């Protein structure tokens, strides 16, 4: 009896968690007038083509999708490399300036990110990076949280004896990191990769100040341009949102088990 109660509660909770996704997918197939009626639609309509047409008419929509993919992929790849290297340095070595540097990294996580908008713009402008995709993926790769996570994982989950053994075998410092430490960090890299990818994929503040051409907009920013003061095409907006969410939804449907397991292993180590 109690077991069934628990199962029901957990399943109902999961259904509630997924309900907004269902609504998003359903609304994506309806026009604006149908979404705003009582009762709202709960099953798919035939407005998807119309919504996509609006998206394509107002936006270089598929180029925006491509730009999102491009930026998120590069950000993730670079962040994984840089954060693993920095986290490794903090976890494995003892060196002068270690503590103040690490404190600086942690403190920077506590600052409200929106404050940095204007100064960041000034920097990017001085570098002549405005409207260039690298203005998104290079700063995005310098993830303080990523360094924190990697240091944490390496300090707890990487056997020091492994490194020492390699050192005795005459491996160089880089070889030890690249061939021995990095493969051991795979779970943490998977977790960090997911977090960075999601963060980059969903970010709209950075592209807002940086991007000048609509072809260079990432999805969240592009979708926001559909929001007029009054005349918002909600159906198209939700269709665009659904498409933006789809890659991650699919990834989950296909690889839920591996992702969760990898993620779990990646975060662990704080005991």
């Amino acid at each position, binding site marked *: 009896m109690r077991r069934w109660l628990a199962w029901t509660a957990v399943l109902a909770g999961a259904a509630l968690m997924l309900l907004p996704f269902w609504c998003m997918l359903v609304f994506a197939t309806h026009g*604006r*007038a149908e979404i*705003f009626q*009582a009762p709202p639609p709960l099953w798919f309509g035939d407005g998807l083509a119309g919504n996509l047409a609006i998206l394509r008419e*107002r936006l270089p929509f598929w180029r925006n999708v491509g730009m999102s993919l491009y930026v998120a992929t590069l950000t993730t790849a670079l962040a994984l490399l840089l954060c693993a290297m920095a986290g490794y340095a903090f976890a494995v070595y003892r060196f002068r300036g270690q503590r103040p540097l690490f404190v600086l990294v942690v403190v920077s996580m506590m600052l409200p990110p929106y404050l940095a*908008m*204007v100064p960041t*713009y*000034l920097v990017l*402008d001085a570098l002549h990076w*405005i*409207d260039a995709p690298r203005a998104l993926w290079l700063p995005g790769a310098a993830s303080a949280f990523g360094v924190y996570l990697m240091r944490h994982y390496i300090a707890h989950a990487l056997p020091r004896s492994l490194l020492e053994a390699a050192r005795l075998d005459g491996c160089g410092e880089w070889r030890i990191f690249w061939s021995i430490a990095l493969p051991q960090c795979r779970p943490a890299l998977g977790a960090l990769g997911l977090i960075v990818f999601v963060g980059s994929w969903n970010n709209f503040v950075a592209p*807002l*100040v940086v991007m*000048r*051409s*609509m072809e260079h907009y990432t999805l969240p*920013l592009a979708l*926001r*341009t*559909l*929001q*007029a*003061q*009054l*005349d918002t095409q*909600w159906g198209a907006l939700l269709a665009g949102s659904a498409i933006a969410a789809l890659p991650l939804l699919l990834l989950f449907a296909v690889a839920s088990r591996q992702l969760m397991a990898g993620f779990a292993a990646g975060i662990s180590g704080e005991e």
Partner: protein
Amino acid sequence: MSFRIVIALVLAGVALCARAAEPLTVAVYPNLDEAIRLVTPLWRQRHPDVPLKFIARNYVDHHNAMTTALAAGSGLPDVMAVEVGYLGRFAASGGLTDLAAAPYRAGRLRDRFVRYAFAQAENGGRIVAIPTDLGPGGLFYRHDIFSRAGIDEADFTASWERYLSAGRRLKAATGVFLLAHPREIKDIVLRSGLKDGEGLYFNAAGQPQVESPRFVRAFTLARAARVAGLDARLTPYSAEWSAALRTGRVASQPGGAWLVGHLEDWLSPGTDGRWRVTRLPGGTRAAWGGSFYAIPAASRNKALAWELIQLLTMDRALQLAAFKSPRLNAFPALRTAQDDPFFAQPMPFLGGQRARLFWREAAAEMPALTVHRLDPVAEEIVNAELDRVLDDGKDIATALADARRLIERRVRRP
């Protein structure tokens, strides 16, 4: 010798091509992107070598991105759309080209535009932008619902008191709310009795005026509407608000001329002939929104930018096309465009009213108010205090005194 000439020619050619390839950029918010689409064929004809590139952003995002770019003084477009709400701050910023100076000498164009709109962009002898569209206002109402309650138009336009008492009868007879939110009453009453050169929240000396009788009356009337239960407690322009208009839960809605297109198109479809527009109670003149085009001081192509602005704001055919476009409904700021026979056509959605003539008159009579850098802050503070009065029963005098203190704190700052 000839070799040098060839090289010089090639270099000149490269330089020309490089210049020609550089597009003219225009940054806008929706739905002004539609206006740029309308002008594009004409521009291509005139300047086949200079492509037009537009950058659209969400209304709030657009102005924030422009603020950021103005801060750095770079990365700005050649032409920038500015909504009237941001004009005061952008005008005071010094980041926009003074169009009163040579070679633009926009002062000579003043008479071609609706007076109040052009005056909004003037700031101490400088002209920072040219108006393109306006929102001359009126009171939209559901003729059928008021008729059912036996109420005539003349019954509620004479004064605000009459408007509220008509609302009580309407509510009793039909159960329909008079309006969406009392803030609408406050916003209009604030504007009553203002003359040229006066400001909404600040006087000429830059002192806040929020404790003046104007504000007391505006707050008193708004509270009376709430106490009598005449408002549907809906935030104007929210999704719920549009649903209420569609289902006929709200019987009147003050707004700019552009509202009619949205009503017809999707806010209140299928109600052809049931809506009317009339003057605001008590004869107040008010406008809802307005768009301008400006040239950032950092633009590298000011001559062409100026040409595009002239095209966007002074081409009669284009202004009319923008007015007729169902997505734009942009009421032209250009007076010569207002002589078109289109203005005299009856509007079936409004029961055959010649409403465009009404709006034209309303626009011409609008006083030219001065805008202040801190108008948006003042508006926000006043709205917050009004909410305290309406929702928490705060005393009006106290609320306005608090509003004045909050505004003064910011005025004292540069």
